[in-house]
């Protein structure tokens, strides 16, 4: 603090509290709506205080009852699909990026830099600019409506490979020499020296990539047609496609709450890694 300005301090708190309230309002409203009956929401304006239907709505959503038009699949199943996909995507990205960064930094082989730049250039090919042909490839592999189709095309990661490469380049050469004198082969060195050293980068990347995987929308929208393979994010969208009036908003909002909880928990509980991950992946 440079000088004492009680008025400005008060103003700071007022602005921040207002900001927090505005940011949190959609969440609060979602929670309130998820505790009321569908009729109570329909009588606009709905009450801004929580109702008494909390358990009924959430169990209806999880079991797949209610939610009039659109999808009827149980949300519990969708949450499982989302969780499995997000874990495969985040861990898969980390694993294959670690391996390729290791190969690029610690070996000499023909076309090494060509491979590196090929990986790097995929940054310029986000899924949005090649949706049609990528869909066709996945269909030809017979991976529609499967975990493989939901995850494998998203696993390649230029940012993660680049990040691990930069990190490996800062690892002292003495460690490799020492490992070699002690008779450790490359995979032994990778497992016992590099992996433990990379732990913080891995944790930071995991947070970012887990959220990335959980929140995927366009890709699952294309490759899943079977309700059993809908991630929860797609499930919500299918629930609201029925129309404004016949929708069971209470169930939709309960589902939205359920869909937000896992990634929000990851961000809040792993806040330190989250911030590190954000900063690292953008450099």
């Amino acid at each position, binding site marked *: 603090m440079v000088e004492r300005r009680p008025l400005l301090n008060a103003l700071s708190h007022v602005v921040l509290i207002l*900001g927090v309230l505005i940011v949190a309002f959609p969440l609060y409203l979602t929670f309130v709506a998820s505790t009321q009956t569908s009729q109570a929401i329909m009588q606009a304006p709905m009450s801004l205080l929580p109702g008494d239907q909390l358990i009924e709505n959430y169990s209806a959503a999880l079991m797949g009852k209610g939610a009039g038009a659109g999808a009827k699949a149980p949300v519990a199943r969708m949450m499982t699909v989302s969780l499995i996909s997000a874990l495969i995507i985040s861990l898969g990205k980390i694993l294959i990026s670690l391996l390729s960064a290791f190969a690029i930094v610690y070996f000499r082989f023909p076309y090494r830099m060509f491979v590196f730049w090929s990986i790097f250039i995929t940054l310029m090919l986000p899924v949005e600019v090649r949706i049609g042909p990528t869909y066709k490839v996945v269909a030809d592999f017979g991976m529609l409506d499967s975990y493989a189709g939901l995850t494998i095309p998203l696993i390649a990661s230029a940012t993660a490979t680049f990040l691990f490469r930069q990190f490996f380049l800062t690892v002292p050469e003495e460690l490799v020499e020492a490992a070699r004198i002690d008779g450790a082969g490359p995979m032994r060195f990778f497992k016992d020296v590099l992996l433990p050293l990379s732990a913080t980068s891995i944790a930071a990347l995991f947070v970012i990539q887990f959220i990335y995987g959980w929140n995927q929308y366009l890709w699952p929208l294309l490759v899943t047609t079977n309700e059993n393979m809908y991630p929860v994010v797609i499930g919500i969208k299918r629930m609201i496609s029925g129309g404004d009036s016949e929708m069971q908003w209470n169930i939709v909002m309960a589902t939205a709450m359920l869909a937000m909880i896992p990634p929000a928990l990851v961000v809040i509980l792993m806040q330190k890694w989250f911030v590190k991950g954000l900063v690292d992946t953008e450099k």
Partner: protein
Amino acid sequence: MEKRVVFRSRWLPWVLIAPQVFIIVAFFFWPAAQALLQSVQQSDAFGTSVEWVGLENFINLWNDETYLASFYTTAIFSVSVAVAGISLSLMLAVFADRVVKGALIYKTLLIWPYAVAPAVAGVLWLFMFAPSVGVVSYGLRAMGVDWNHLLNGTHAMTLVVMAAVWKQISYNFLFFLAGLQSIPKSLIEAAAIDGARPWRRFWTIVFPLLSPTTFFLLVINIVYAFFDTFAIIDAATQGGPGKDTAILVYKVYYDGFKAMDLGGSAAQSVVLMVIVVVLTVVQFRFVEKKVNY
């Protein structure tokens, strides 16, 4: 920068990079090449005949008023998202940088929207502004604004911009806060001793020193608005009313998967690729500068 000490193996490095290379070839380069190829071909909806048409798809795009309108929509959308998102989060970050008590609590309460899926964000905002049941649209009507984003294009655009900004605020906030905390306190103190008040200090010292962060966030936010907001738009407005919120990515999806115009959709994909390349180059040139700075 290269390692002097390396391992020797003829086959191991290839095994290690094989998974990554397989995925980028099968799911990135091959489809991208297909998109390039399809963009110069014309096939009928059943895929029975394929014909080489050269640049005709691109010329059609250029003459297609809805495509040009989509460019305009995308420009309005991304500029609004970037400007609104950056200025709001800069304001919050400047005040959060001032407070000592409760700084961590404010930070925690402001970063969680990052975790919300764009599609869910779209649904939440849709619910608040739904013409028949929405709480906010009810309030607006009480104040004399007849809110209906199903009929009014400006309302629909405002809705998706708000949802997109809300989702991105935490990201911008964190970067601004980090930028503010890296400004040397001695500069601020010197200015204070010279008699500059907080308002003036902000515009003459803090804001100029933050300009690398601001520029970086500008690029990131435009990329975000171009590519990552598809889910918000699909959930909240489905590009409507009419095509008033159909940004470029939405149109590629719609033309390719709903209208089954493969050649046109592929040509649009190629245009988007060019846009990504330009944005990425801008971003990296800037990152290099930041390293020197």
